[in-house]
């Protein structure tokens, strides 16, 4: 059961964050942080299917994570989701067309291996 929940979390987190990045990219940079302007941002984002689908995927990931930490230690739950780093970086390169140079790849791999090592008692 633990590992089924981990797979759901990894897939839903990746889908959620990539869709969120796509939706925000389409929206464009937020410059104005006054309440009125933020209200207009919120209503624009509510009409973006990327953002709505992303919130759906993140809700799935969130409830699966809540279930996981109710049956397993947090020190198991958090590192088990490290696979999403690699998956998301691949999507960032090919779908979001981000430039991922050696610094970014090396840094991401260091972070992912570090997260896995955090699980070792």
């Amino acid at each position, binding site marked *: *059961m633990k590992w089924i929940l981990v797979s759901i979390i990894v897939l839903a987190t990746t889908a959620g*964050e*990539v869709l*969120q*990045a796509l939706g*925000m*990219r*389409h*929206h*464009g*940079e*937020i410059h104005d942080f006054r309440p009125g302007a933020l209200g207009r941002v919120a209503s624009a*984002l509510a009409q973006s299917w990327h*953002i709505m689908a992303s*919130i759906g995927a*993140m809700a799935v990931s*969130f*409830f699966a994570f*809540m*279930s996981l*930490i*109710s*049956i397993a230690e*947090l020190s198991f739950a*958090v590192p088990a989701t490290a696979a999403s*780093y690699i998956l*998301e*970086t691949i*999507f*960032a*390169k090919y779908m*979001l*067309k*981000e*430039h*991922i*140079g050696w*610094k*970014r790849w*090396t*840094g*991401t*791999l*260091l*972070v*992912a*291996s*570090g*997260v*896995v*090592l*955090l699980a*070792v*008692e």
Partner: protein
Amino acid sequence: MTSPVKALELKTRIFTAIVVLTNVLGNSFLSRGMQSVGELLSLSPLPYIRALFNPWVALGVSLLIVWLLSHMALLSWADLSYVLPVTSIAYVLVALVGRFLLHEHVSPARWVGITLIMAGVTLVGHTAPRTHTPQKRVVSV
């Protein structure tokens, strides 16, 4: 006058800090609340809704909503491949809080993990937060 590049970097740092702090505090409160709620494995929404009435769970969920909104704002200008590794400094904070405030044991392997994450965050932190070209508004000529 600050240059646009400096302004973007400052904005990125401020939002990264908000994302990291709300993530760490939100998950800690949520985890603390879940320990008193007990096992939660259900397809029905009712047990989850009942869990929200636990004050720690409610506080955790509120902070995670702030986390979601600041994460969205950050992604409106910064790369996902930048935000993802850089915000994982949150794991280091969780481990350090566990060690120094909760007096948990941190194994040598975990210290290596903490060091690797810090090295990775430093490396990615030295890249430009935005490598994609911002979308141009369509202008008719």
